[in-house]
């Protein structure tokens, strides 16, 4: 035990720089999602496979839909990325930042009829 103590005393601390330095997240980490609206067809497969209701599809008709994403419900499991046949949705290695309002994090990923990607 004494040897471990002396070893530790004369070795550098293994503490990460963050928060006093830049944050370094590993490459494969599943963080916030990235969405490519052009690829999305609104098929809803991601919504069906999401285990945590993190995605919501509000569909009026085939062309007229809204795809919502709720980071505060998301389980960050990567199932949507795996399911999407057209690769529209994927995880980046950015950390989702803490918030004072979980519903305020909700992101409108795509509205079908306008074919635009408005983010709120």
């Amino acid at each position, binding site marked *: *035990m*004494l040897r471990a*103590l002396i070893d*530790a*005393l004369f*070795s550098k*601390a*293994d*503490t990460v720089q963050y928060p006093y330095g830049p944050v370094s997240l590993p490459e494969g980490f599943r963080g916030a999602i990235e969405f490519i609206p052009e690829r999305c067809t609104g098929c809803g497969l991601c919504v069906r496979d999401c285990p945590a209701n993190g995605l919501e599809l509000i569909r009026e008709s085939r062309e007229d839909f809204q795809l919502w994403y709720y980071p505060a419900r998301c389980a960050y499991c990567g199932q949507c990325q795996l399911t999407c046949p057209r690769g529209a949705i994927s995880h980046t290695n950015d950390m989702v930042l803490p918030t004072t309002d979980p519903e305020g994090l909700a992101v409108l990923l795509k509205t079908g009829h306008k074919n635009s990607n408005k983010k709120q």
Partner: protein
Amino acid sequence: MFEGLFYLFVFPGLAFQVFCGLAFEWVDRKLLARFQRRVGPQWYQPLADLIKLFSKEDLLPTGASGWVATILPLISLAAVLTAGLYIPVAGFTPFSFEGDLIVIVFLMGIPTLAYYLAGMTSVGIYSILGGARSLLQYFSYEVPLLLAFSGPAILSGSWSVAEILKSQAELGPFILFQPVGFCLAIAGLIGKLKRDPLDIPKAKSEVVAGSLTEFSGGKLAFWHLTMDIQAIVGIFLLINLFFGMPLGISPWINTLIFSGEVLLVIFILSASSSIFARLRIDQLASLGWRILVPVGIIQLLFVILMGV
């Protein structure tokens, strides 16, 4: 008159001791962190903790006695501050008289008693258990500690800390004559300060925070301050009794030696709290009475024979 107030409130009294207590806490925590390969707290951490505790709401559980809970930390703080007044700092002592070592030992026992009472006045089971444990522990470490303290006193033929310090300047540090006594004193001090591995009365995984479980706000802050100052007073006493220093050269050199010795003792305390697991209370009692006390008596006999 003015001088007396200065001694009381600035040096070596209140302000100096509070400063040293906080500095001790920081050095201790930083060392522990280094042993654990961590960075450790910032330099202002103990101060921030203290101020924050004062800013918090002061809650008392229903059934606990309010004024007793308030007065106990104050009494123990006053006791350790008074004890600190009689201990020479780097050879400087304004108040010294024959027999002050006994007064110091007596005053240093008051926080333990107050801790016990604090546990008993709270209604929580953890507090009661912690209080009872602190008293049990007191009986185990106090006798070896007293035996260890009487060694230097007998060797120098005086019960005054200043006299003991003076005779060490002539004879050489007493740790050379009584290394066993020094180890006993360290063990006793760890017990007195309720530090790991003898933090039985406030063991986190058993009794949450011991007697202090139900305390919050300012009262807790006073308790923390008491613990810190008690630690620094204990360390000062240990240094004066066992290390000593060449007196009368220059106050600056004395200060330097003194600080070095303080850091050494803090290092020993931190290291021993890192490498030992907490003992059970029955193990502590058998360690105290079966090993430490006989060893203390033998070393005392040795000292007496040496004196003859």
